[in-house]
């Protein structure tokens, strides 16, 4: 007698509200199980390694602060990507917009645009943040304009622009601002540093050596703003409408060209702000390698978070933890392995939301039983 057949049946009813959360968490859990099996097969003890992972990421205030430092740019970039993706604009140029933001922000201390000795820190930082956003927005304007006016594929344009900005930055880093010939500029004056918890070590001993900087607050604030835009504003409604059916949006009176450019610029501005946060909060100088491809990770973060601003924060922290933990484990590729498995499983878990499994017995089986 043959076994009953398992088939996928398309769901006709809506899934319960808890279901997406459960399937996503289940997928992450399963990813760790599969990762564990792989670790076991190469002779390691997965429990020991995961324990180490966890300790490396969340074990102490210091390591958690490192996680948050890594998560900060991811949150901002993930938010920017979510916004663009909601409108079905495939901005994969966050990496380039990030570098452009870093460059523009660096103009403040490097040119310098304001006298660094006398200007109050708050003014310098505000100016840097503002310029960082302008830089990202301008770099987002190019693909946005080309898409809106000439319908040029934004994926190709943003991807290419990512390479251009690297050489642009290198010209300034090597040619103009090089610190005695190294591939980096001089360290920014302290006025251009984002405040860190370590700055409070004088009053609170716990904070000594804690690198967590104010950039993470930008991330949280941005999440709130993006959430309000998407869910509580006229503009967000229009973004969703254009994303779902641009022809209907045009028919309803939406100016698609204008919104394409605006959304691209806002998406770029968020990535640009991430660039500012990174130069001002972490490296304190402009250099060739600021990003460990945050721009591309941000795309993945946005997808894993299903374009939900609050979920972007959670996913960014998870990714930050994986980046930090990879320092603890050799080879460090293991955390990328886990990243890959998580991405794969979370995206595949969508199947459960659209289909359900059904056991079916073929007619033949029934006949056999009857016989």
């Amino acid at each position, binding site marked *: 007698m043959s076994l009953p*057949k398992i*088939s996928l049946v398309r769901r*006709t*009813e809506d899934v319960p509200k808890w279901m997406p959360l459960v399937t996503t968490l289940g997928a992450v859990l399963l990813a760790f199980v599969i990762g564990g099996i792989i670790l076991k097969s190469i002779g390691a003890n997965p429990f020991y390694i995961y324990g180490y992972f966890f300790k490396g990421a969340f074990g102490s205030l210091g390591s958690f602060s490192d996680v948050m430092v890594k998560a900060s740019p991811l949150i901002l970039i993930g938010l920017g990507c979510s916004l663009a993706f909601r409108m079905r604009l495939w901005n994969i140029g966050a990496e380039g917009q990030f570098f452009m933001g870093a460059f523009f922000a660096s103009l403040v201390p490097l040119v310098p645009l304001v006298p660094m000795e006398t200007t109050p820190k708050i003014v310098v930082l505000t100016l840097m943040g503002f310029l960082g956003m302008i830089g990202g927005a301008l770099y987002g304007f190019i693909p946005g304009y080309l898409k809106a006016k000439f319908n040029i594929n934004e994926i190709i344009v943003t991807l290419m622009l990512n390479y251009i900005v690297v050489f642009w930055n290198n010209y300034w880093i090597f040619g103009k601002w090089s610190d005695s010939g190294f591939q980096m500029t001089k360290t920014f004056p302290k006025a251009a540093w984002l405040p860190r918890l370590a700055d409070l070590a004088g009053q609170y001993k716990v904070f000594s050596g804690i690198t967590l900087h104010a950039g993470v607050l930008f991330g949280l604030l941005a999440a709130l703003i993006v959430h309000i835009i998407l*869910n*509580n*504003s*006229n*503009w*967000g*409604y*229009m973004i*969703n*409408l254009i994303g*779902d*059916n641009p*022809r*209907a*949006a*045009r*028919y*309803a*009176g*939406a*100016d698609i060209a204008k919104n394409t450019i605006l959304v691209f610029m806002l998406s770029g501005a968020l990535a640009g702000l991430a660039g500012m946060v990174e130069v001002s909060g972490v490296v304190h100088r402009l250099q060739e390698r600021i990003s460990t491809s945050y721009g591309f990770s941000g795309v993945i973060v946005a997808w894993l978070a299903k374009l939900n601003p609050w979920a972007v924060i959670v996913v960014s922290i998870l990714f930050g933890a994986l980046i930090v933990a990879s320092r603890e484990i050799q080879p460090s590729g293991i955390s990328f392995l886990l990243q890959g498995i998580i991405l794969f499983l979370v995206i595949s878990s969508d199947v459960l939301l659209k289909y359900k499994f059904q056991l*079916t017995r*073929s*007619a033949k089986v*029934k006949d056999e039983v009857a016989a």
Partner: protein
Amino acid sequence: MARFEPSLEYLYEFNLMSYLEPKADSATVEPVVELRDIVLRFPGVLANDHVNFKMYPGEIHALLGENGAGKSSLMNVLIGLYRPTSGQIIINGEPVSFNSPKDAIAKGVGMVHQHFMLVQNQTVTENIILGLDQPRFFLNLKKYDEEVRQLAESVGVNIDPTAKIWQLSVGEQQRVEILKILYRGAQILIMDEPTAVLAPQEAEELMETLRGMAGQGKSIAFISHKLNEVRAVADRLTILRRGQATAEGVPVEGMSREQLATLMVGREVIFNQRRSDKEPGEVILKLENVSALNNKNLPALHNINLELRQGEILGIAGVAGNGQSELVECVTGLRSCQGKIILNGENIANKSPRFSIAQGLSHIPEDRIGVGSAPNLSITKNVIMKNYREKPISKHWQLDYKAAKTHAEGLKSSYDIIAPNVETQARKLSGGNLQKLILARELSSVPQIVVAMQPTRGLDVGAIEGVQELLIGRRDEGCAILLVSEELDELMRLSDRIAVMYEGEIVGIMEDEDADIQTIGLMMTGSLRMDGKEDLPGHNLLQKEPETEAPADEKAESQPPLAMADPIEPEEAPLQEPLQTFIDDAKTAQEETLASEDPKNFKQEVNERIEKFFDSIEEQDVEEKPAKPDLPERPLTEAEEKERVLRKVLGDKYPEDGEK
């Protein structure tokens, strides 16, 4: 005396449609398909409620019903997309159970869906052999081209197997879908609303093809809600209403449009004129020398001049593709044009759609799914599409979803949109309900002018009536309506004036009194123009050759307009006299008893009358039998039959054995 045929009116009155047995070609012919007692239940919906369906070789069996009546569900059961909750599928006398359409096609059952599933960049042949186990590795396309060509010839279909799908018209693409099914050896074809996407001429060609295939012994199930079409092509029909069969395998011959409509919607449908009795008001929309290009940058509109007045419906007639879409797009701001479009004294030509919306222009677009709605957004988000910037839904930059929801709930109930709640995604609505949603959005804003393109296309009779009533209601309130339709019947019924378009020009405008279908048909086909100009239109359009040589009447003969084929005329099947008296009796009895509110009495009454009636049938039957030897034997005895009928009539109230 003629063979007894119980009037549908009677049968309908008592919900006895299943009493009729199918007219088989002979008693010995086995049905190729039999669906027995199919029940299909979805969460909260009973899609099919004990439906029986039989198909014989070589017949076209129409499946008629409103949107959401369960026609497609029933056929999806037959091809294995859905598994019935209960019931049996019997193919060629053998009970089967399908898990997928693949299983069904292996048994010779295939379906042509309404939305084609073709790869645009592949050739006809490639699409047809796609997904088959053959060829295994090397593809000798030429060999398959030849096979496809032969197959096409054998069913009288004209198609080039090497053409790419995107080069084909919609009608040709449909033929590819049919060939795809036939190539897989289907003997039983299911066509899901095949004419919904076709131009009238293409529909006529399809009918020919279907008749040809039926002539070759194939069985065709034809899902539709177009009454004329069913009457033209089908041999027998099954009518579904709310999941139940109100007619099972009834011969189409002799059924009038009105009878079919009544069976479908469960009430009388009025097919009468709905002209405005008021004088139209001021001119509100004026088109002056409007010209425009189509999507291929070819001239599509040429010097259009039109006036639309308050409180009138101006119908635009024309064969599809003669510039109607472009005209609508120019007026609604979706297409740039030359010339002036003056709405309320403002030139709205080449302004944004938002500008015309602000001027009080509503637009019911032709493409409900592609243009009129955002399929993945909720009903709420779909109904606020045009007023989301206005109070109370919007406060400055903020969108008040609570207010939006209240607004949506109000519209849902006043426009009778059937959906679980206002958070339901638009794509889950049936065609009729989606159109109601669009009408709710467009008409609730109290527009000054409504531009409606094909507002009833693809809808069933009941929904069509609803849409037309809404438009008329607005018209009577003084709204000006520009109605573009390919249904001449509809235009004649609703319009106060009719303008005819041909090759991008208005070839004539008629007051409704002067309009007759014949004249409009001639104008639509470019054989006649009534705007005083000498030459026929088309000479100034690049894509067409001048067609001035042919004399008008000759051309009319060579290409008669399709819509003329079936003018509305009341067709009443003559009722047999005894039956008529019986119905009258039954009606009065029912009214009396209902008035007395005594269910027991009513039950008895019905009982008696049915008994009496069956006696009379018996008598007649005996008489008629020799005349119609092919009438199949009734499998049930009279007593059983009576019980079954009573069960149907009384439903839940039927006393079960214990109570008896």
